[in-house]
């Protein structure tokens, strides 16, 4: 998959966030400060506004540009974390010097991105954050990349994202704003986990659809 397709995924992601806007928003009202939807939306808007500038670039360059832009436009806790994710993905892909993304080179990039979030946020699995979606997805992806076919990978990642998102519900938060709530955060899904799950699902759907529509290897 080339930058063109990455951009298509981003549009799909934006669409999916809008579809789930009410959920995402109310989760951050419940255990956060009510701005997560707005932050993610702002991120989507600025990236979508860059699309024509990004199209001619190789994917690693596109990711780096997206990361830089997000770093200066989202803010909050999620902004620098998501920005770090894109910046690290750009670095990883740049190192592998590929013009085209495949499951094989994208999985380590994705893992590098998730690792960057862990470092930046000083957080790990089980702290009731977006990482409860991202870490298991990265792990599953790494296990399947090069082993399973694209639809199977998409299927597995979607399931993993869903499971991770739901797992945050009964957790005590130890990072992010919800950590201040102690027991009162229990019973609420983490908003960042929700938006990441929505994003991953949208991307998997887009990849699957593209495979259905054409069987060129450029997609996977």
């Amino acid at each position: 998959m080339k930058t063109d397709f990455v951009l298509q995924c981003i549009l799909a992601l934006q669409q999916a966030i809008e579809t789930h806007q009410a959920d995402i928003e109310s989760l951050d009202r419940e255990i956060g400060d009510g701005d997560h939807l707005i932050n993610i939306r702002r991120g989507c808007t600025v990236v979508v506004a860059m699309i024509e500038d990004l199209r001619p670039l190789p994917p690693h360059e596109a990711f780096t540009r997206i990361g830089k832009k997000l770093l200066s436009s989202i803010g909050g806790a999620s902004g620098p974390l998501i920005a770090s994710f894109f910046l690290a993905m750009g670095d990883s892909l740049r190192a592998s010097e590929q013009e085209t993304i495949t499951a094989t080179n994208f999985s380590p990039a994705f893992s590098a991105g998730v690792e960057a979030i862990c470092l930046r946020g000083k957080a790990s699995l089980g702290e009731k954050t977006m990482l409860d979606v991202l870490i298991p997805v990265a792990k599953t992806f790494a296990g399947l990349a090069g082993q399973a076919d694209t639809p199977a990978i998409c299927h597995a990642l979607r399931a993993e994202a869903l499971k991770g998102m739901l797992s945050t519900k009964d957790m005590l938060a130890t990072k992010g704003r919800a950590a201040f709530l102690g027991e009162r955060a229990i019973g609420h899904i983490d908003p960042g986990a929700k938006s990441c799950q929505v994003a991953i699902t949208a991307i998997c759907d887009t990849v699957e659809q593209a495979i259905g529509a054409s069987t060129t290897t450029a997609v996977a």
Partner: protein
Amino acid sequence: MKKFLNSTDSLIAESVAGLVRAHPDLVTASFEPTFVSRKTPATAKVGLISGGGSGHEPLHCGFIGRGMLDAACVGQVFTSPTPDQMIAAAEAVDTGKGILFIVKNYAGDSINFQMASEMLEIENKMVMVDDDVAVESSTFSVGRRGVAGTTIVEKIVGAAAEEGRDLTECKAIADHVNKHCASMGVALTSCIVPAAGRPTFDIAEDEIEMGVGIHGEPGRRREKFKAADAIVSDLLEAILADLKPTRGAEVLLHVNGFGATPLIELYLLFNSAAKILDARGLHIERSLVGNYTTALEMAGASLTLCVLDAEMKRLWDAPVHTAALRWGI
């Protein structure tokens, strides 16, 4: 939701523009990236930069000026500003004596200021304000939230920087003040994030949120509404349990309104608190009553107690000239 707005997208820019129009002698604004700084930059002192999400006005832009901040970075409502803003602000106010970032302890502010600190090619340090005792921190690595004590930290370290203390000293003073401040708040109603358009939390006509955060985050517990004296007693009990001031200690009592609570009630709270402090043998040597660290239009208030020493008192009394705090000038 009824707010004075033209569009939620332009709210921050228009409000910052209004601040600069209202105080042209005090502050100037830069846009893209957005920060507000002194109209007349200091020439040789540690640069004090704060910032955070909007919606807490006058914090922080109302505290820019002689004797207090050099610049403040303005985020979206309740959303930390971004590292590029902090870097631009630091580069604008640096006089070669280094930068002290004053940061309220939230994940977003902490991560963004941390990134700025790492990327910045100017010597800099950071103080994390975490005065909110509503959050019992022991079990969580994130610590406590930074709330209305921030004003006190900014005032006192502001005076120290103005006196020519170096970066290490300023950081130490700010940490010292923070350590001696404890706050807790209570909400009667919710705030409304403009872009969200509806209350952050629901609360019944006979309920209060004890220990609420300045973004409308839940606090210690939801309770039945009760008399002011009883509310104040609960807030002060938590604060005193944390600070453990010795009998005879001198304190600064700050009654901070969250936005929609009228001054007549804030002074009543001050009176309630003063009676309790009297009984505990604490001396209210300084006071601050008003809306300083707000949460948009939330009704409610917080109490902050700061245990003073002679140096802190002297620095508190030092001249300050900002939009929201001014004396001696």
